[in-house]
C-alpha cells in the first residue's frame, strides 16, 4: 500500500530560527496520526507545509505522490487553528462556499453535522462563540470526502462537552480510505482515536510508532508518555 503522505528530511527556517530540522513522516491510508509536541515544537509548521500554505526550505513532501499544489489541495481537507472564515458569511454561505470550490464536498453530510453540532445555518460567522466557530470549521472540513484530513488543534478553546462532540464527529465521519493528522495539547482527551503517534520537539521527531505498540512497550498511556518525553 502506498503512503498517502511521505515527508523526507523536511526543514523549514525563518531568518535565524529553524522551525523544522529534517522531519520524516509517513502516513498510510486509513490511519489517524497524532502529531504531539509542546508549543513551538514545529507541529503547525509541518501541517502548513502539508496543506500547501508554507514551503519547505529543503526536503520533500509528497501527498498522494504529488508535491503540494492545486491537486493536493483538492484532496487535503485542512483545519487551521485560526479564524479563517470570512466575517460577512452566514453558516449557509460558508457551506455553499465549500460546495462551490471542493468537488468532494458532501452537502448532505454538512447539514447532518450542523444539526449534530447544534449550529443554525442562518447564524452569521461573526456572531458565533469560539467553540461554535471551531464546530463550524470542523463541520466544513469533515464534510469533505478528502483523502487526507489535517486538523490543527481541533479541540483548542472548546469546553469538555463540546470536545466529546467534536471527537464523536471525527470518529463517525472518518473513512477507512482516508488518513488524518491531528495535533493537540489535549492528549488525554484524544489519544483513543490515534493509530500512530509522532512526538515532535524543537523541529525534530523524537519518538514515533504505533500507538498501541507504544502503550504496550512503555507500559504507559500516550498522555503519560507525552509528559515523560516533554517534561
Amino acid at each position: 500500500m502506498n503512503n498517502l503522505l511521505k515527508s523526507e528530511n523536511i526543514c523549514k527556517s525563518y531568518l535565524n530560527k529553524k522551525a523544522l530540522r529534517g522531519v520524516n513522516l509517513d502516513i498510510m491510508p486509513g490511519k489517524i496520526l497524532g502529531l504531539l509536541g509542546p508549543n513551538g515544537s514545529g507541529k503547525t509548521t509541518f501541517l502548513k507545509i502539508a496543506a500547501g500554505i508554507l514551503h519547505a526550505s529543503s526536503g520533500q513532501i509528497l501527498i498522494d505522490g504529488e508535491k503540494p499544489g492545486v491537486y493536493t489541495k483538492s484532496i487535503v481537507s485542512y483545519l487551521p487553528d485560526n479564524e479563517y472564515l470570512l466575517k460577512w458569511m452566514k453558516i449557509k454561505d460558508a457551506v455553499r462556499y465549500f460546495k462551490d470550490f471542493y468537488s468532494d464536498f458532501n452537502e448532505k453530510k454538512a447539514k447532518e453535522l450542523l444539526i449534530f453540532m447544534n449550529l443554525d445555518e442562518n447564524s452569521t460567522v461573526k456572531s458565533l462563540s469560539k467553540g461554535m466557530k471551531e464546530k463550524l470549521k470542523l463541520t466544513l472540513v469533515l464534510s469533505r470526502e478528502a483523502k487526507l484530513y489535517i486538523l490543527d488543534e481541533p479541540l483548542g478553546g472548546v469546553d469538555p462537552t463540546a470536545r466529546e462532540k467534536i471527537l464523536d464527529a471525527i470518529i463517525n465521519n472518518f473513512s477507512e480510505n482516508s488518513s488524518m493528522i491531528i495535533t493537540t495539547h489535549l492528549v488525554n482527551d484524544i489519544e483513543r482515536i490515534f493509530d500512530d503517534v509522532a512526538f515532535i520537539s524543537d523541529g525534530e521527531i523524537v519518538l514515533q510508532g504505533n500507538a498501541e505498540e507504544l502503550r504496550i512497550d512503555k507500559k504507559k498511556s500516550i498522555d503519560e508518555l507525552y509528559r515523560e518525553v516533554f517534561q
Partner: protein
Amino acid sequence: MFKLIKYELRSTGLTILGICITVIVANLLLMTKKGSWNIAAVTGLSICLTIGAIIVIFISSLKIMSKYLHGDEGYLLFTLPQSGTSILASRLLTALIQTSIVVFVCILMFNLIVPEEIYYSFLKALTPSQIFAFIFGYIWSIISSLTFIYFCMVIGKVALKGKKLGKIGSFIIFIILTVVISWITFKLEALFPQTLNLGGSSIANNFKTSNSSFQIFGGEFNINIASTIFDIISFAGFFITTSFLIDKKLDLS
C-alpha cells in the same frame, strides 16, 4: 475563477454600495446648487467626487489583497484548489468590475449635473475608435497598475516574512520599481519617439514624452510604440511572476 469573483464581489458588496450611495447623495446635493452656484464649480466638484470614489475603490482593492497576504482570510483562499494565475486573475477582474460599477454610477450622476448641450457635444465629438481607445485605456490602466502593485505586495511578503516588514518592504519595492520603470519608459520614448494614433490609426513621429504610454492631445489618442511594448512585456512579467510566487514561494504567517 468565476466562483472566486462571485465571492469577492459578495464580500465587497457593502463597500461598493456605500460608495455608490455616497456618490449619488453628494451629486443630488450638488444638483440643488445648480441655480445658485457657478456651473463650473458644480461640475468640478462632481468630477472631484468621481476621482475620490475611484481612489477609495482602488485602495479597497489593495486592502483586500493585503488581507489575503497578511490576515487569516488567506488561509481560506490559498488552501482552495486554485492556481496562482486563477487567484490573481480573479482579483484583477473583481477590481475591474468594482471600479466599473462605481465609474458607471459617477458618469450617470455627472450626466445629470452637466448641461445637456455640453455633454452631448462632447459625446458627438468622439469617434468610435476614440471611444474604443478610451475604454481600452481605462481597462489597461486598472489591470496593469493593480498587477504591478500586487506584484510588489507579494514579493514583499515572500522576501520579508513578517507582517510589518512585508508591508514596508512592499512599499519600498513599489517606489524603487516605479522609479526604474519610469526611467526606462522615459529613455525608450526618447530613443524611439514613434507613436501610434489609435484615434486615427496612423503612425507618426512625436517627441512628446511622459511617464505614460498613453497621451491624449488635439483630439488624438497617441501611444508610444516602444514604451507600449515595454508596458505589455512588464505587465506579462509581473503577472507571471506574481502567479508563480503565489504557487511556489508564498508562505502564510
